[in-house]
């Protein structure tokens, strides 16, 4: 089995606070991997280590081994690394000064050898279709994100991430701030990507992980307390924390 991400003995300190403790994780390529846990447990920090956005956190110190897409992520050039790893954030952040079209196009142009305007149009269309947003914006491509709803903005962010043809996609609680209808659409879009790329999704909704993920890791207080295929973890949870978490008590 090939792994998109291999993490060994990862320890992260933020201004002295021990945010991630001895994390070991292997994410199989092409799978959808959910990371779950209560707020403050270190889920977002874990994602940020993978694409080196941890560099933006003041006072952060990282120790351990992190291999992403076959490369030593901690030693690589973060800008090159990020060209292969896409990310969606909890709060949708499409570029407010660019139109819907430009938001997706800028990503495509940065990362692909996109030639003519027609090819660019096709990539933009593909990305918006895969993000299940095309039908809603196909006549509004020159409008600005401020004119879209929260759920649409989040799907725009997905399209923007997809336009760079990433090998790995990181999702940080992507449905946390949008309404249920849009959340479902987003989940469908994510599920449809299975196999084409690897997805690591942070969520605090157990049902969402069940619906969408192949593998699950439960993280609590900076430590991975359980991980395996979603069947194993949800049907036969071994750790107390997992049980409590699944019951909604943590």
């Amino acid at each position: 089995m090939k792994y998109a991400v291999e993490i060994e003995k990862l320890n992260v300190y933020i201004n002295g606070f021990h945010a991630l403790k001895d994390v070991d994780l292997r994410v199989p390529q092409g799978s959808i991997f959910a990371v779950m846990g209560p707020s403050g447990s270190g889920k977002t920090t874990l994602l940020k280590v993978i694409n080196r956005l941890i560099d933006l956190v003041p006072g952060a110190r990282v120790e351990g081994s992190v291999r992403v897409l076959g490369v030593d992520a901690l030693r690589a050039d973060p800008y090159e690394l990020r060209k292969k790893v896409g990310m969606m954030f909890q709060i949708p952040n499409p570029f407010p000064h660019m139109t819907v079209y430009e938001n997706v196009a800028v990503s495509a142009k940065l990362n692909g050898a996109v030639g003519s305007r027609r090819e660019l149009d096709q990539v933009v269309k593909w990305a918006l279709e895969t993000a299940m947003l095309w039908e809603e914006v196909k006549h509004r491509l020159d409008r600005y994100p401020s004119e879209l709803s929260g759920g649409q903005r989040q799907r725009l962010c997905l399209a923007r991430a997809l336009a760079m043809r990433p090998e790995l996609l990181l999702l940080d609680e992507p449905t946390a701030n949008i309404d249920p209808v849009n959340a479902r659409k987003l989940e469908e879009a994510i599920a449809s990507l299975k196999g084409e790329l690897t997805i690591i999704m942070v969520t605090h909704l157990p049902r969402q992980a069940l619906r969408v993920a192949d593998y699950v890791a439960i993280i609590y207080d900076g430590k991975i307390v359980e991980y395996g295929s979603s069947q194993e973890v949800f049907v036969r949870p071994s750790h107390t924390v997992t049980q409590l978490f699944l019951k909604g008590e943590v």
Partner: protein
Amino acid sequence: MSAPVGEMLSEKDKIFYFSLLPPALTTLGLLALIVSTIGAKAALVLPQALTILAANVWDPENERYGLLAPVLGTLVVASIAGAVSLALGLPLTLAVAELLRGRLGSVLQTLLEMASAFPTVVIGLWSARYLAPFLSENVMKPLYSSFGFIPTFSCRPLGGYSLLTAGLAIGFSVVPYTASIMIESYRLIPSTYREACYGIGATRYETARILVSLARPAIAGSVLLGVARAMGETTIAAMTVGNAMNISACLFEPSYTVPALIAAQFGNANLYRYAEPVLYLAALVVLALALALSAVGFKLVSGWRVRIVG
């Protein structure tokens, strides 16, 4: 295997950093250049600096110079301006940030910002043509005739050009600046303090008294920053101070400030041997004072802001 990331810069970041370093260093270099040029040009007379600062004479033909009058004048004018900016800035702050906090308050604040966009030379023109005669007729002459025995009022005004007029005029021009810093600081006071005051039934006056006393370091700092700015003010001073080497306790007579002296005398200074260096010395003194006061003022304001929010 460990890698301290976080604040660590990757290779590309380092290139970016070093590519922006030249402009940053150039700017700092410019500042250093300015200070060192002044210092170097004053070097010729630095050995006699204290003598010059203690003397009151301006006789370039005979190469006799004294900076006591302008230096004292600068201090007096800046103090008057500071007092004005405190006396008028505080009511403005309370009006904008305490009493009128809604729409009317922001209109007032916009007016204040507009006032800071006033070119000082226009204020100088107005001061010379209107403020000086007004003060002369309505303030100085009456005070001179009725209270002339008090040293401060003991001279006959000459058209109103004096330290008092200069101080007031510069004070009026500096009020918007001082008030804006006070307002910004006052707004940082957590609303819980205000709520606590009203909660125990305090009147607006009593609440304001408490909040103002809380903000005392910031207010003091703002006034110091205003005084530092007032020290360097040239055009208004040159148009209202009367340009006379004169030291007296009376505020109604013409006198000098250092910037006004420079404005008046620097143009001809190259005709004489020591005139320029002496003027550079004067500039150095004012520069040092202004920098020192600004530093203290800034420390007071920013230190207080950190404490009040934390």
